[in-house]
């Protein structure tokens, strides 16, 4: 219950940003399209598949725990954490490449462009950055759960902590489901 209420606050946080995105995209459709061509659709698609798969593994870890298969559950949570790291590594290289070609907030290269493109990259950095922060927090939450399962404080009879962590993780996935087409797929 508490987790759902928290997820609603997250909805409003990201909702506000999606609203800003919607208004600026409406105002600068051409510039957004032009700027979006600089994102790598392949990396975006790969990260989408990684996150969807991590949602699958964390969901399965609950079933495994409910069935009393502790080792399998721990393996699935570990896989989820590894996939999250895979996502972050991709993000790191993606941002690194952008920085290397001079596209980062307030860079001379970016400021020389039209205001629509500046806004696009501003929203890109803020929204994917905030999302990446959520991924990092999710990794921490899942790591705690791994320890709890190992110690036996989270088990087949008491798995609410894992369920709550999984809920948060799925929210991170859902936000990415919207970020992906809005930033990578507007050619």
């Amino acid at each position, binding site marked *: 219950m508490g987790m759902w209420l928290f997820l609603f606050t997250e909805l*409003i946080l990201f*909702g506000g940003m999606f609203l800003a995105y919607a*208004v600026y995209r409406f105002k600068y459709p051409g510039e957004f399209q032009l700027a979006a061509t600089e994102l790598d659709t392949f990396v975006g698609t790969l990260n989408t598949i990684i996150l969807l798969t991590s949602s699958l593994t964390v969901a399965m870890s609950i079933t495994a725990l409910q069935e009393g298969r502790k080792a399998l559950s721990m393996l699935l949570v570990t896989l989820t954490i590894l996939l999250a790291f895979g996502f972050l590594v991709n993000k790191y290289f993606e941002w690194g490449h952008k920085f290397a070609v001079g596209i980062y907030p307030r860079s001379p290269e970016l400021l020389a462009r039209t205001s629509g493109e500046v806004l696009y990259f501003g929203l890109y950095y803020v929204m994917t950055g905030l999302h990446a922060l959520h991924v990092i927090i999710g990794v921490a939450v899942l790591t705690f759960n791994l320890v709890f399962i190992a110690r036996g404080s989270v088990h087949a009879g008491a798995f*609410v902590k894992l369920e709550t962590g999984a809920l948060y993780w799925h929210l991170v996935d859902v936000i990415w489901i919207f970020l992906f087409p809005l930033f990578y797929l507007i050619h």
Partner: protein
Amino acid sequence: MAVNTEDHPAHPQHTVSYASYLLIWLGLIALTAMTVAAAGIDLGRWVIITALGIASIKTVLVLAVFMHLKFEDRVFRVFLAVALVTLAIFIILTFFDYAFH
């Protein structure tokens, strides 16, 4: 109001099978492929509608099965609906304000 506490869930335990999770995952991957493929076609103003439509279907799948909303109390679904409608109203009102500025 009955609140589910951690130690005494008011609703019976639901175990979702690995097979149903896998099926949903396959659906999500297929929808991802669809949205990438659709982006390659010039649909004009339908581009954003298609993208958001597919994203919404994916979200419903995640919410219903991965997040167990399908098996939760009705109260959760009502709460979520209220939150989403509120967000939709914000967005629609903003565009009205924007259009008549």
